């Protein structure tokens, strides 16, 4: 399993453990919550850097394709000038031209995270990924780990925790 896939899996497992620990008898255990958060942070960092790298590579590849497309269009134009009668057949016989489409961001948000909105703009999708994968200590209620208490509200965004 490559590191990125493992990071994603560990993040999913960690989040489910976090949810489960909120309802266990005796309330949140501070030590366990801290360790969970450290694992999630490691996995998030790996996932984030892999995602950023993939996005950068994707952008670079898209740039290359743009250049290729411009070159192709020039070639097409030359073909058209060369042979007007066969242009349609050439297009039909070379389906790869139609397939050279710029691929959009089809998998911006990881599928294991709950989506807060039905649709997001491409730029906001990436932002939501980072926020969703980051679960700061404060959001996990580490400030209120008393026996018998449990978190009443859980938000993916940062929350201010009351002082003990």
């Amino acid at each position, binding site marked *: 399993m490559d590191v990125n896939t493992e990071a994603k899996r560990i993040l999913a497992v960690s989040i489910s453990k976090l949810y489960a620990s909120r309802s266990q008898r005796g309330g949140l255990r501070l*030590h366990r919550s801290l360790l969970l958060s450290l*694992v999630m942070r490691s*996995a998030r960092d790996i996932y984030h850097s892999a995602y950023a790298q993939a996005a950068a590579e994707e952008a670079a590849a898209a740039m290359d394709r743009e250049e290729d497309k411009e070159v192709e269009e020039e070639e097409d134009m030359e073909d058209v000038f060369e042979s007007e009668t066969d242009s349609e057949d050439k297009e039909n016989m070379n389906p790869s031209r139609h397939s050279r489409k710029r691929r959009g961001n089809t998998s911006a948000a990881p599928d294991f995270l709950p989506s807060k909105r039905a649709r997001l703009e491409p730029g906001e999708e990436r932002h939501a990924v980072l926020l969703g994968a980051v679960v700061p*200590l404060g959001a996990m209620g580490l400030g209120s780990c008393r*026996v018998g208490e449990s978190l009443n509200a859980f938000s993916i965004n940062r929350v201010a925790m009351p002082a003990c």
Partner: protein
Amino acid sequence: VAGAGGGCNDVQWCFSQVKGAIDDDVAEADIISTVEFNHSGELLATGDKGGPCQPAPVPRGVQRVQAPSRATNPSSDYLKSLEIEEKINKIRWLPQKNAAQFLLSTNDKTIKLWKISERDKRPEGYNLKEEDGRYRDPNTVTTLRVPVFRPMDLMVEASPRRVFANAHTYHINSISVNSDCETYLSADDLRINLWNLEITDRSFNIVDIKPTNMEELTEVITAAEFHPNQCNTFVYSSSKGTIRLCDMRASALCDQHSKMFEEPEDPNNRSFFSEIISSISDVKFSHSGRYMMTRDYLSVKIWDLNMETRPVETYQVHEYLRSKLCSLYENDCIFDKFECCWNGNDSVVMTGSYNNFFRMFDRGYRQDVTLEASRENSKPRSVLKPRKVCTGGKRKKDEISVDSLDFNKKILHTAWHPLDNIIAVATTNNLYIFQDKLN
């Protein structure tokens, strides 16, 4: 003397006794949560998650004292006074000053002092009462006799003497009695308090690592212990794998450590779970006070108090689990908190593992052995056979492969008699006593 005359492989450990239910259907209340010999080795205390207690005599004069917990079984009416309701995290015996024995027990929030008394005789032959306690009709009394003490089955009783409550916001993980026999410390995730054994309504906070903003929390306290000889010195371990030694003479609040023991992480072993497996689950001073031992998830380390930069000895308990950390994270086993203990002369250390295995490491002879606590090996005086885990390649006969290990059978708590080669090993709900064949 325990350990003298040969390495741990020369000692033949024999089954002596087992206490607890035979079937695998373990009630939560029966899970053993702590095991501790007293200073003379005559008494053994166990704590559990709150269930009926069955104290029973153990050979060689070691008495098993079931630490106080909720008595749900009305038949054990001699324990009615015991009222600890939740899982007992730790038990610590007080040094014996007179005939009575005292111990401290703690659950998540409250510490209690108990007096342990033993009764092996009872008076018989009263003139005015029957043997069952009913009063006789005075008209039937025609002779006078002197009541005498007659032997009876040994009964061990524990009665609560003091309650030290309301001093901890977070979950208590340790208690430790000071060598001055007057004070003790209690530690939770973020704070350590100092108590006087006589005073229950007041304690002093001596360590506080709680950050102003809890979002900045990076480590918690996992264990703490007083030095066995120096009443001003104690250590506490952290979830980051560090140990801090503090001197109470330096200041009232010991936030500044005198020494910090930390081993740099091996970058080759870095993984998602590096922080979890470096968290220290137990710290124990040697009897001499020269060394201390720490237990993290995969290893036991011996530290010389004079050297902070790295341990002097490291023993791998179950290194074959390093490649399984992801699975152990998923099934929560990676959060298991194993304890460790020294033998009487600090030559051998012991700790538990999975599949009901426990490990001993002889420091002098550089030997180690893996043994198993199981009902199958529990014939009287039967010698325990060393076990071996096959880590790869062809599995030899009698070896067990890593994938066959039962991770539900874990030994978290062990104790070694202070003077002899007698050990107490707790599986989930059974307590095994093993002793040296020579004894």
